[in-house]
């Protein structure tokens, strides 16, 4: 574990958020991209055929959208928080507001509360228009030892 904590700390010092993504196999499989935009941690998921859930519309899989948003929350906590551990998800609740069209999805997070043990994170996702949110989610994570 200490090796992982040191790598995370080195990545944060180097200011290279995408290097965090590259440590998580599932985030790479989805195709998560992590940058700071206007000083805000910002996540994007370029369209891939493998993320389709409804081939007829077509629309992105609700699980791919949810998994992307959960990745965003974990990476956001590691990037901005004091914890050098990988946060462990306690619960995850998602509301789907619109179908995910076959184009890029963007996500940003709000850490509503970070205690010594538990963090509450809100995540919202949109595509072309930030005002037309396609999904909102809320998750709790264990962030302590």
């Amino acid at each position, binding site marked *: 574990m200490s090796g992982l904590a040191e790598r995370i700390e080195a990545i944060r010092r180097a200011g290279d958020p995408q290097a965090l993504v590259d440590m*998580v*196999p599932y985030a790479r499989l989805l195709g998560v991209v992590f940058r700071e935009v206007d000083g805000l941690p910002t996540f994007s998921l370029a369209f891939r055929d493998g993320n389709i859930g409804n081939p*007829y519309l077509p629309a*992105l*899989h609700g*699980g*791919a959208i949810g998994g992307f948003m959960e990745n965003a929350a974990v990476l956001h906590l590691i990037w901005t928080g004091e914890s050098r551990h*990988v946060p*462990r998800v306690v619960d*995850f609740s998602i509301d789907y507001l619109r179908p995910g069209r076959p184009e890029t999805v963007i996500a940003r997070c709000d850490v509503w509360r970070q205690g010594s043990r538990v963090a509450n994170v809100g995540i919202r996702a949109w595509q072309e228009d930030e005002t037309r949110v396609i999904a909102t989610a809320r998750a709790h994570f264990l962030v302590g030892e």
Partner: protein
Amino acid sequence: MTVSQEAGGDRLAIARRFFDAIAHGRLLGMTPDEATRDSVLARLPYREELVGNPATGVIHGGVITTLVDETSGAAVLVTLGTPEAIATLDLRIDYLSPAEPHRDTFARSQCYRITRHIAFVRCTVYQSAPDSPIATSMSTFMRTGGRRLRRTARVGASS
């Protein structure tokens, strides 16, 4: 063959068509193993690409979200019995204990109520035994198509 076995075979065929049509579920490698008139059991074999924590080798919670969403949607379709388009409205997962690396993960979903517009589903995720769940979930689905969208049948685990 008894009537119930016949019905179970039909239901499993419905679940298989649904899973086969969904690219993202195929990418992760999930398949339905069993189906009844209102429930589906699906399996997700362990793979390194699904890992969320490189220090422990445990699969990512987001992978479980996809397994639960797709298996829960399949429970709605086997319960309906006739092709119809559905969409997930909301889904909540409680992670009861960490998944273990290098083990298959199973999800058993049950559609316990359907109204004209909404279906209600619960789902349990486990690895070693059904009575030792690693996660539980509640979700709701909207019936979006009805008979007018017969061609989009067997599809719906997308948002």
